[in-house]
């Protein structure tokens, strides 16, 4: 569904992506793991067009999207969330999600009809928020929401674009452990056709929710495989899991 060919990116002398070749089939839950600074967020930025790669190509459902602007990639079916909340602080969750729905439906250019005329879009936004249990706060200003609710809204915004591939950058970053489990349960409950790639540092969560794992270190993909394969991989144990095991 989503694939890349020889993706490369460096910041000055720092190599953050080196010959990245991905192949994510439809409907699989991927975890992307790797130490801090490994280049995970950078990879998402490259895939979604926030950063331009120095070299390489990106394909979504067989179509090359490397030259598309970020919003065009979203319309093609590639959505993402942000490691650090990137929300509309002064808008309500309902308004925020409605923007995405209206944009997807091609109504966002409409400046002559009032919002209530777009009942279906508002209803859809409400339904999406209800699914993520945000309906009770959908009329509050986003900045007043609890942090965990804001993390959920991050996901709601991405889902409102009806993606085929969803990239989640540490969806549970900063969320207490019990809430984190709830959040990942919500992610696990998403449509089975959706391809999901999530970045996560908590190995319990990774091994519980990922069907496959990609390990990134120093801008390279070190290993890719099922949780069992990755756990047994000697290089991974040495470079990454081993370190964590020692720290624990």
């Amino acid at each position, binding site marked *: 569904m989503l694939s890349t060919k020889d993706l490369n990116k460096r910041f000055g002398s720092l190599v953050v992506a080196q010959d990245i070749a991905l192949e994510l089939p439809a409907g699989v839950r991927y975890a992307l793991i790797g130490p801090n600074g490994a280049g995970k967020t950078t990879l998402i930025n490259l895939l979604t067009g926030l950063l331009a790669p120095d070299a390489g190509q990106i394909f979504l459902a067989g179509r090359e999207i490397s030259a598309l602007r970020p919003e065009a990639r979203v319309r093609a079916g590639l959505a993402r969330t942000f490691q650090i909340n990137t929300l509309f602080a002064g808008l309500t969750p309902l308004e925020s999600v*409605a923007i995405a729905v*209206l944009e997807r439906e091609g109504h966002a250019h409409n*400046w002559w009809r009032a919002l209530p005329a777009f009942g279906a879009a508002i209803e859809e936004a409400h339904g999406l928020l209800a699914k993520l249990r945000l309906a009770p706060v959908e009329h509050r200003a986003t900045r007043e929401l609890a942090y965990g609710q804001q993390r959920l809204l991050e996901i709601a915004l991405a889902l409102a674009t009806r993606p085929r591939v969803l990239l989640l950058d540490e969806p549970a970053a900063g969320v207490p452990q019990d809430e984190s489990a709830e959040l990942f349960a919500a992610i696990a409950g998403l449509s089975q056709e959706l391809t999901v790639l999530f970045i996560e540092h908590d190995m319990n969560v990774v091994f519980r929710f990922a069907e496959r794992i990609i390990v990134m270190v120093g801008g390279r993909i070190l290993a890719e495989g099922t949780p069992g394969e990755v756990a047994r991989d000697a290089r991974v144990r040495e470079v990454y899991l081993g370190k964590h095991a020692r720290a624990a």
Partner: protein
Amino acid sequence: MRPLEAAFWAATLLPFVVTPSYLALASQVAITALFALSLDLILGYAGIVSLGHAAYFGFGAYTAGLLSKHDFGEPLTGLVLAAIAAGLLGYVTSHLIVRFRHLALIMLTLGLGLLLAEAANSASWLTGGADGLQGVKTAPLLGFKFDLYGRTAYAYSLAVLFLLFLVARRIIHSPFGLALRGIRENARRMPAIGAPSLAHLRKVYTIAAVMAGAAGALLTQTTSTVSLEVLSFGRSADVLVILILGGAGRLYGGIVGAIIYMVARDQFASMNPQYWYFWVGLLLVAVVLFLPNGVLGGLSALYKRPE
């Protein structure tokens, strides 16, 4: 329209009977309010800070002036053509403007404004330069002459303000208006939910230029004069002050700001005109300190408190 709004617009008719000797001022207020409303669309709703918005006002003013000088003095046609001309200028410049934010944006709008003002100054064969455009004669509006008391002028300005206000009101309550608020709140998130922010910004910038151009044309037609002042930095700065004073992003902010500012300036002018900007400065400091959301923001906070 809510009762309070209806009452407000009904009250705008009061000058005809209560202060008939101030209709010329009332007309200026309506024109400035329209200009501030156009700035509100880009600044208050889309977050584009401009220090050169007079470029579009002045472009509309000169277009209307040149048209009437060359015997196309019918005001409604002139108004529409001037608004379109300003809109075209807005559309062209928007391609540059929307790529920038923050300080760069302020410098850019300031630069474009100064550029146009200086161009108009140099092209004296066309604009009359520092002497202003000579020979502007506005034909009667639908049979009504522009009288000395300003009755026609105020009726005309008020009608255009009201119509374009309704348009602005539509815009901000539409999906497009919601998308603009999204851009203002978080420009970085918009592309990530599939929104072509730059296209939205170009569109609202063009619409705002049309409205500013209409305001400029109204000034030309109701006063039968055009001078370089319509393009000046002072005019850009004044309208910004007016909007901040009234409350940006509140639809009525520009109108309320224009009323307060213009009436106050008129009162001061009869006393100590040279101190006007001293008081403006003081007012600005006071607004920023005590009413960060403008007069309307302060009023709505008062109104909400008892709940």
